[in-house]
């Protein structure tokens, strides 16, 4: 397959992918955000010392998710970081 036909094929596949994904991008993004919100809630529970079954994972992941945690607590109506120690803002 030469370069020209390959690029045509790649363009075709890209268009096909767009045709498949675009109509439901918003729905899926919303669902992903809801999942993330639940996860963040678990992280928050962890910080308050409330037992949760996924504590082993959530506590470990807190530093990695700090930026997302910041977006989440603002989305949840808390303009400042709710954590007492080592928060995000």
């Amino acid at each position, binding site marked *: 397959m030469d370069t020209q036909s390959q690029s045509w094929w790649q363009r075709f*596949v890209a*268009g096909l992918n767009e*045709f*498949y994904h675009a*109509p*439901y*991008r*918003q729905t*899926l993004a919303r669902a992903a955000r809801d999942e993330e919100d639940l996860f963040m809630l678990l992280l928050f529970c962890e910080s308050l010392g409330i037992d949760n079954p996924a504590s082993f994972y959530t506590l470990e992941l807190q530093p990695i998710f700090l930026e997302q945690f910041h977006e989440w607590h603002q989305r949840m109506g808390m303009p400042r970081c709710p954590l007492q120690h080592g928060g995000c803002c």
Partner: protein
Amino acid sequence: MNSAIVLLFGVLAMLAGYFVYSKMFAKHILGLDNSIPTPAHTMKDGIDYVPTNKYVLWGHHFTSVAGAAPIIGPAIAVIWGWVPAMIWVVLGTIFMAGVHDMSATWASVRNKGQSIGSIAGSVMGGKVRTLMMVVIFLLLLMVNAVFGVVIANMMIKTPTAVIPVWGALVVAAIIGQCIYRYKMNLAWVSLFGVVALYGLIYLGTLMPVAIPETVFGLPDNAVWILFLFFYAAIASLLPVWMLLQPRDYINGLQLFVGLILLYGAIFIATPDIVAPAINHNLPASTPSIMPLLFVTVACGAISGFHGLVATGTTSKQIDKEEDIRFVGYFGAVGEGLLALGAILAATAGFATLADWEGVYQKFGDGSVGAFIDGGATILNNGMGIEIVLSQTILTVMAALFAGTTMDTGVRLQRYIFQEFGEVYNLPALKKGVVATLLAVGSCLLIAFGAGGIDGSGGMLIWPLFGTTNQLMAALTLMIVTVILLRKGKTVWYTLAPLSFLLVMAIFALILQLKTFYSDGNWLLIFLDIIILIATILVTFESFSVLRREWRQHRA
């Protein structure tokens, strides 16, 4: 008259509309300007607002707006003769639908990609927005009820389509898993999907499935309707990536394949139209062509539903303003072409006039059945595909369209009920299952309430659905007219179709009210009155807003 000549005339007229009329409208009225950045760029978020290639976006817009309605409406309307239906489809597409879709997209692009409901609120006030929400709810209610009845009829009429129609769900589910779980290449998955679907169609012709005429005392029609709504309820609760998304995708591919097959067969077989140009031998109790033609054919001539798509998703993905013309206007042309194909299949696919009259024995007859039988004859003559296989292909095409619309419609209704739960603080209504049961229950009430226990009279709702659809289109055109008036532009291009639609809608509702009253159908009388009140309110609101704007503009 030869169908190929009629088809050629229709296609050329619509293309002329695109190349001449839409160009003038885009340049002088809307003032499309590529130097103005679109929301896809200014609000780009990688989710809703994404600049998209205009051909891909046209594909979206077209496949989102084209469903079973541009097949059903025209295939019913040919009872008055093929000429009125064709003129309405061609002129409606050129002067109304194209303008409607294009200007709705434009209005949204110039208002940060807002939906038509939000624009209604900001341009016309809360009263119009509330009216619009009522109209949208009624539109969804009726489309789900009618499509349930239509698919049930198709399952009984063409038993060979049962396996492919339901098998398509399995194919869609497999595609969904391949894309999301196994990250497979979409091109190969698509090829598998199309091959599997057509394999199922062939299998269906070998293994027709018919359920008994009565099951637990219920007629087969009613059983299929219940079964369909049970499925729609389950489907609306599943995550979209599992079923709805791949199903929509297969439908899109199937739409292009079906149109190419049908148009190709008409040009190869060139069958003569056997139906009368204008039918002077109308069956008794057929309603008057004026105004019923203009509400019987909504999708395919002008449809308010397009405004929801144009302002819901399309406008957020417009890359350059000038793309609006291609995506909006040409999207409407695509639907017009589908309606034109339906008219020719339902009028040229019969051997004699007597055969055709045998199908169209009363208003509401023919419909999808005539499209399938007539289209299959044309496919058989043009492409050499055997008649049973042709019937199955066209049934699957129509049933998949109607089914996907039902899936989406029930899901949207569920959201509306859940929103009611949020607004009025009703905890039970916020639950997905309860809201789904209410959505499905209200649709079943309409389907059986309008047509009795076998649901066979469900098609009585069709003109009411068309009227509601035209009312929605009128609302969208009114918003665009007000925006144009404020910009000091000529408004006649949108005001004329808006006035025409409102007059026809009121006229049709009054006539139908008389019919429902003489039939003693209280459920439809109630629905008719609600829509009539909404139409009158819209008319008065339009008149007062336009008069106020006109005065301010001239002052």
